[in-house]
């Protein structure tokens, strides 16, 4: 096999003592990207292994994100057309599928590139320093980050936030599998607190100023559009219809708007048994119950269940809360974890006028509590054993 030979020939150059040994972990990453490692089982221990590995599991999360990514790209262009083209949602030109999509692609691509370049750069450097393999966890984080930031977040801020998250939320804890907080959410939290003008949560900046070559729209400076949550927090009428919030043709962070696209991802994750359906379900149950108790008294044209379709609720429940590393390890803990995320997110939204969106903070808060939920279940097992011994 040609490729294998090339890699084998290059290997000594990148190995310890070779000319390019400083890039050894990068070479390793490339090699395992192309080929399943040929390492065989040791003398003792299981001699056969399941074909699943963390690389495949993690890439399936990326696959599950594809619908949300594609729709997000389309929606960037669509929202742009709405504010620049002077058309209404009913008018035909705004449904220019390819034009909108290409516009969004052009906006989105630099963010994806920056996120991956910064994050993977740090991961590879750390792996090299620790003489470990590069862990693939960042492949998901790196695509999640562009999906949960505002559309025209400057690239340098994005790079800064990504670097902060990878170093302080992940590597200092020991890398993939050891972190306490979801690194993608830490990126968003960093932006939220360090650059509040970028993302207060009530308005998002619809991209308008720097790419207008695609559809020839007149250059306008960035325009801010209120999100449904922003309108709720301000006590205004929500303009978006339930249909729009479910399909996702509303302003918002790039990946979070379309309930349909996210649910397709959820189906893929549950089908492949990669994310916990228990966390997803209990998040929705917790959110629904809390939304029902705290529902608006009819002054606003907003049903309680619509809470679950707007903002980052769905995206958080499906892709963020289910991060296996930062969620509880016990099955019982997962139920509580999800339930409290859903409930907490709605509480923050409705009762705290300062923060129109509560999903990010709810998940980060529950990340802290995840070990506590595990503690209850593990401790129950320990107590049972101790009691049995006394008898």
């Amino acid at each position: 096999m040609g490729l294998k030979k090339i890699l084998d020939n290059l290997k000594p150059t990148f190995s310890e003592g070779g000319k390019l040994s400083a890039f050894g972990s990068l070479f390793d990453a490339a090699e395992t990207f192309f080929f399943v490692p040929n390492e065989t089982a040791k003398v003792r221990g299981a001699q056969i292994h399941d074909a699943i590995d963390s690389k495949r599991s993690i890439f399936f999360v990326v696959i599950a994100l594809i619908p949300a990514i594609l729709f997000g790209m389309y929606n960037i262009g669509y929202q742009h057309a709405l504010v620049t083209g002077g058309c209404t949602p009913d008018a035909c030109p705004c449904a220019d599928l390819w034009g909108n999509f290409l516009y969004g692609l052009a906006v989105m691509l630099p963010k994806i590139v920056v996120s991956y370049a910064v994050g993977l750069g740090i991961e590879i450097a750390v792996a090299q320093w620790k003489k470990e393999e590069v862990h693939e966890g960042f492949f998901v984080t790196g695509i999640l980050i562009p999906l949960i930031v505002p559309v025209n977040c400057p690239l340098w801020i994005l790079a800064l936030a990504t670097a902060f998250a990878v170093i302080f939320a992940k590597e200092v804890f020991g890398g993939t599998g050891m972190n306490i907080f979801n690194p993608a959410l830490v990126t968003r939290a960093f932006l939220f607190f360090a650059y509040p003008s970028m993302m207060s949560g009530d308005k998002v900046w619809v991209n308008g100023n720097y790419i207008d070559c695609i559809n020839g729209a007149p250059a306008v400076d960035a325009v801010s559009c209120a999100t449904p949550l922003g309108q709720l927090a301000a006590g205004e009428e929500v303009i978006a219809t339930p249909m729009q919030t479910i399909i996702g043709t509303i302003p918002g962070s790039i990946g979070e708007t379309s309930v349909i696209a996210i649910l397709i991802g959820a189906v893929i994750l549950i089908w492949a048994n990669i994310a916990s359906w228990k966390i997803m379900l209990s998040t929705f149950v917790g959110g629904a119950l809390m939304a029902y108790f705290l529902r608006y008294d009819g002054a606003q044209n907003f049903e309680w269940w619509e809470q679950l379709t707007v903002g980052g609720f769905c995206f958080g429940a499906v892709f963020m809360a289910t991060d296996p590393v930062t969620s509880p390890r016990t099955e019982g803990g997962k139920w509580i974890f999800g339930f409290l995320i859903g409930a907490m997110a709605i509480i923050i939204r409705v009762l705290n006028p300062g923060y129109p969106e509560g999903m990010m903070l709810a998940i980060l808060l529950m990340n802290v509590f995840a070990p506590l939920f595990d503690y209850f279940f593990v401790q129950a097992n320990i107590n049972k054993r101790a009691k049995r011994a006394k008898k």
Partner: protein
Amino acid sequence: MANVIKITKGLNINLKGKAAAQVSAAPASQVYGLVPDAFWGMKPKVVVKEGDEVKAGDALFVNKQHPEVKFVSPVAGKVKLVERGDRRKVLSVQVEAAAQQAYVDFGKKDVKSLSGEQVKEALLESGLFGFFIQRPYAVVADPNDAPKGIFVSAIADMPLAADIDVVMKGNEADFQTGISALAKLAKVYVGVKPDSALANIQDAEVNVFKGKCPAGNVGVQINHINPVNKGEVVWTIGAEEVVFIGRLFNEGKVNLTRTIAVAGSEIKEPQYKQVLVGAKIGDIVAGNVKTDTKVRLIDGNPLTGMKTDENAFLLAHSTEVTAIPEGDEANELFGWIAPRFKNFSVSRSYFSWLLPKSREYVLDARVKGGHRHMIFSGEYDSVFPMDIYPEQLVKAIIAGDIDRMEALGIYEVAPEDFAVAEFVDSSKVELQRIVREGLDMLRKENE
């Protein structure tokens, strides 16, 4: 009517090359070897010299801490070699078989008339006591302990494992005698599969276990019947080893003839062979291993067994010899996305879940992924049918936290109980090695 216990967690791995139910005698080996490492947790003291003549049943080495626990030669002949490794560790004691077999006469005995002490005496003298494994620690049993129970699993559900029905055929009377003898030492529990002929066994509590692998693991059965608490000891012994005990009392001699499965995708004609403990692996598989690929020979089954080779000797507890492709030249492209139809996985990112359960897989010895920290949760739990949190226990062992290991139930487990979890683990953690180290660490600490 026996108690029926359903095991819901677990995984059956359907491998190609199951042994057909035909039994034949393997050619006699010229040299037999007894490997001390097969009796884990024991320091051997060799009691023979090279050139000594021994009969089948004469001690080759004893347990240094408990010299009354002997390990005896499976054949008569001349001690050929005491093979030693680093720091003079005894690797094997090899006996060149004589043309005429001679057995040490231990005398036929009627088990019913014996006391517990007499049974123990007979087992110690004949070297069969060494087949007991105790929990905690999963090591050779200590004859001074009074176990709260002796557990025998008559279920072999590991992939390619020898079918108990085939192994037991013709040995039923000896099995019964063996169980009756054990019953003099402690209460005996026998775990059987549904509709097993062994369900009518006397002098023991019989429990029927229904479920997937590792329901046949004696540790799983203990956990469901009468779990081990701190300070308690139980002994376990293999079903075929109970037959050895039965033969001792019925025939008056040590006859370590086993019926083992010779199985796996790289065996030309998978079948059962009658062999003596300590036979040369090469003689057992002679002419029966495929040669078109690089083959890994395993002493035991592919989940709990140990890599071996043709010059090695069959370990004392092994009930099968299996052969799978080594696979180190597979070079599979794009493993993270390719469909890989031939692979077996519990993950539905592969297609094995769509294919019928009867489909048999050829799995090679590759680890099939990079080693990671534990990332995905619940993987071990779904195939670990004990009332124990496996992941938390393994983490406590890695951290060396003795108190927590105890609290989480390390006294109840053996490495083999983690075999299926090690198979499904996407982070490729060497669970059985870690658990072994944890048990040894704890034992050292407590002694």
